[in-house]
């Protein structure tokens, strides 16, 4: 594991303080188990295109319903449901919950989705570490059950 602090926060990014705040995660078809009606642990990790920063939405700045609608309207794959973990659960796994809504969006994105934040996986190098972290977040999300979003 690389030192987390080696990835300095950029201008417009800050750590989320409220440990109990929920982070909403949109679950799409490739990470959804239709038979058992639950997400994969993969739903909680970044995809390659995320460059180690998995996108979530802040409970304090948007609702699960609005976040889901925005995702379905703008993303390639529609959201099939919203699941959540807390800032504390993220930090317990050695990750950071970062609000980047005031930072400059990446090329091709006019503005961040409402309440955008990310869970920072960039310091995790081994597949084993990532596998454990994402599974822990899945277990926490399953305990919380799906967040109503319709």
């Amino acid at each position, binding site marked *: 594991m690389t030192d987390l602090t080696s990835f300095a926060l950029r201008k417009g990014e800050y750590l989320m303080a409220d440990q109990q705040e929920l982070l909403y995660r949109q679950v799409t078809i490739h990470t959804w188990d239709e038979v058992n009606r639950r997400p*994969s642990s*993969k739903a909680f990790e970044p995809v*390659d*295109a995320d460059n*180690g920063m998995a996108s979530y939405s802040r409970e304090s700045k948007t609702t699960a319903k609005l976040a889901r609608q925005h995702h379905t309207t703008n993303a390639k794959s529609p959201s099939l449901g919203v699941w959540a973990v807390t800032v504390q659960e993220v930090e317990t796994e050695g990750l950071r919950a970062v609000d980047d809504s005031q930072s400059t969006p990446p090329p091709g994105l006019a503005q961040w989705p409402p309440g955008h934040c990310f869970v920072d996986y960039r310091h995790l190098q081994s597949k084993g570490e990532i596998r*454990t972290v994402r*599974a822990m977040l899945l*277990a926490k999300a399953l305990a919380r059950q799906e967040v109503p979003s319709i």
Partner: protein
Amino acid sequence: MSDEESGLPDESAGSADSAVVGAGAGAGTGTGTDTDTANQQTRRRTRIRLDGDRFTGKRIPVDVTPELQRYERLVIEVAAQQWKTQNPEKNLPRFFRDQFQLSIVDVEDGSATPVLERVSNSAYDTYFDHAAESVDKAFEAIIAGEEEEVSAWVTKLPDFRDFGSTLEAGEAIEFRPKTPAVIRYTPEIRTVRFPKAPTRKRAVADEDPRALVGRLTALDANHWKFTLTDLNGREVQGTYTNPDLTDDIKAVLNASTVAPVARVIAYIAADANGQLARIVDVESVELFESEREPWTRRLIELATLQAGWSEGTGEAIAFAALDAVREILRQLEVTVDNYPGIFPSENGGVLVEWASIQRVISVEVNPEIEYSLFRLNPEVRATDELETRNIRAAVDFLRGALA
């Protein structure tokens, strides 16, 4: 610091270039990459000359800029392959591909010569430098008619096959311009070397091949025609030009399975609505044994995923990984009571996962059929892990975890 961390190639392993592209008689001439060895600062610059009337006065039509993007992607893919070759026991470092980026820092005259500079300074720069040389040598071999000197996986890269497709007759792209070792690539050479690759003039066909999944139901070997019935029962007519494929198609048709499913990597023609109209040519045919089992539908869903299924990235799922997953599920005698989630992995593998609040158990199979076993007790954050190539060991691990 480990090799992976340092990113340094194993110098004792010989030329990484020849290992990847197999460059032989047609390679190794001139200056290697287009570099100015007199100045270390310019070692990271590459000149690619665009020759033709459209490029006079240092003009670069926007239509032609995809060639520079293809070149960048080629260097990245070759570098990644070189890294994997030299580090066979390791996974490609996360963000390896992000470590390389070219920028146009100047355009020199004659006709137009964009000067490309590598932006990054990463631990993997040595790989990217070698890769750039390998790409040059691969084109050199192709131009010389020595395709056999270039590794097959290189010539199958869409960016390699399509390189130069925006050029018009009489135009050329030159590597190492204005040196004795200049490499001049023209549309005419490309057409001869890659006759099956679609060109811009084939307006009805996709530029890149697609993965189609269905049942091969008829073959006319004399006329190199076949019929593919998709999973909704719709028949699509296809043709192919590679005679070797006749045996592959026959093998699928003669499979022991009642209704064999195959994945066909093909260039397709679409109708006015963008729907598949016919199969213009085939690159490969692969059998996917398909018995009617509880997980068959899900595995076929994964088999139909196109490259880029995950936000633009994500490899097509390897049939070998799907076969391995099916065998594991059979041996575990999975039933509806312990049915797992089955998910695609971006590397072309498959994740099988049994998840609950009390435990998360999984096996991830990569395209090389390596099994990553995992068991987690979230309450105490205790994990068991196993990496193996042995399916029996994988099944034993899962049996113990699921008990």
